């Protein structure tokens, strides 16, 4: 791989909290324009990696570069080209949806901030709620606004820390669609998740974090090869609750 095709490069990353090691030497690379999923159960250090890469936290040792800039020595340059959607919805409840977006656009020093906000509101189906205070929004609407705020100024690389936690299935699928469109447009997407199906649906590459190290890293096909070949079994497959839910919603919309 050429250097300029790499969005994130991490080597030997270590981090401990009060002598409890969380990251014990993490290595991986993320190609520009790809969707990279970091998979692992809660408490394995996914958020710690995101915080280091977004300059919120300093590593104990090891190198991390984002868009060619070291997170330790060039944090300002890193922040220019990224955005973060954290684990918790970070929207201002007292402001309206539009005011939230305009605020971020101003902080990114964009011109015509109002237009930027209107476009994102439209894209995320929030135009009708634009001038309502966020405290009146539903959970799904807040998450959509949260993600819209991360896209202000079209950052080259977006970090999403468990973005679909707490979203209903319909919104989640909608959200996957948005991420795929972003990646098609050349944006690099780094996301953490604890849902296997999410990684499977979205990611070009999947890395599995376990006990502070990456224990597997590859495409879905490559990861599947690591396991014994699939056996063919015939079973009656019951629809999942999610499929039932979506079927009912689909019918309602047809009517």
């Amino acid at each position, binding site marked *: 791989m050429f250097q300029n095709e790499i969005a994130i490069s991490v080597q030997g990353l270590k981090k401990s909290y009060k002598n409890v090691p969380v990251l014990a030497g993490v290595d991986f690379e993320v190609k520009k324009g790809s969707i990279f999923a970091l998979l692992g159960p809660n408490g394995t250090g996914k958020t710690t990696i995101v915080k280091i890469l977004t300059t919120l936290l300093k590593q104990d040792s090891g190198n991390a570069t984002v868009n060619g800039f070291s997170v330790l020595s060039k944090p*300002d*340059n890193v*922040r220019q080209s*990224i955005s*973060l959607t954290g684990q918790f919805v*970070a929207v201002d409840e*007292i402001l309206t949806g539009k005011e939230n977006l305009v605020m971020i656009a101003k902080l*990114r*020093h964009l011109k015509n901030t109002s237009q930027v906000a209107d476009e994102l509101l439209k894209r995320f189906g929030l135009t009708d709620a634009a001038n309502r205070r966020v405290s009146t929004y539903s959970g799904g609407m807040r998450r959509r606004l949260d993600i819209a705020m991360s896209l202000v100024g079209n950052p080259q690389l977006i970090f999403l820390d468990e973005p679909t936690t707490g979203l209903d299935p319909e919104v989640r699928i909608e959200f996957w669609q948005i991420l795929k469109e972003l990646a098609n447009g050349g944006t690099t997407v780094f996301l953490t998740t604890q849902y296997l199906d999410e990684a499977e649906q979205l990611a070009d590459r999947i890395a599995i974090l376990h006990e502070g190290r990456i224990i597997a890293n590859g495409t879905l096909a490559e990861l599947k090869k690591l396991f014994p070949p699939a056996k063919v079994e015939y079973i009656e497959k019951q629809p999942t609750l999610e499929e039932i839910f979506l079927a009912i919603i689909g019918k309602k919309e047809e009517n």
Partner: protein
Amino acid sequence: METTKSYFFMDMSVMLGRSMRHIFRSMDTIVTVTIMPIALMLLFVYVLGGAIQIGTDHYVNYLLPGILLIAIANSVGYTCYRLFNDVQRGIFERFHSMPIARSAALWGHVLTSLISNAISVTVVILVALLMGFRSSAGILSWFAVAGILMLFTLALTWIAAIAGLSAKSVDGAIAIAYPIHFLPLISSAFVPTKSMPSGVRAFAENQPVTSIVEAIRSLLSNQPVGNEIWVALAWCGGITLVAYIFAMRVYKKRT
């Protein structure tokens, strides 16, 4: 590349606009920082004032400095609460992963505290004028009063910042306001310290609020200020400096 420093003031004004909106959209805040001190002033002047022997002209002239300090003490509780929310809800994380000066978010809150207090103090003074408050002070004395009040606001705001940034719960964040509320009660704000028993009197005469109240009272009534003003300034300056150092330390650690 644009530098984050050159945008510091622009970014801070965005932060200021945001938290001023928080204040004007919160009836609770407006009531606590202006209506409550005014009610207290009405109560003391028209209900209790007749029984209080202060040996000067109109009681409102005696009372006003203490009421102003109470208004300021009430409002920094909200600064504390707003900071706590920004830390808890991940709003600071969002700001800190953006290309803006790291301290802009914190200074935005401090500036909001200064400006909102200037507004509420002005409103309280206007009401006092309606109630018969008169001052023979010249323009320089008024500037000195404004300066002392600003420094007092800064001192309390930085204490509130420590609490807001390090609190684990809303209750903990707000608890900081209680001792601050008590100080004006055990001072010369409402009655001269001469009437107090010796132990209480020793405390009242040596705590910051008494010297600040006395200094402002002397300035407003065009009396020689003597040492009080230097003691008042030393208290405010000292508290501001120590609280600022600790608040910055917590800020760097927490965010």
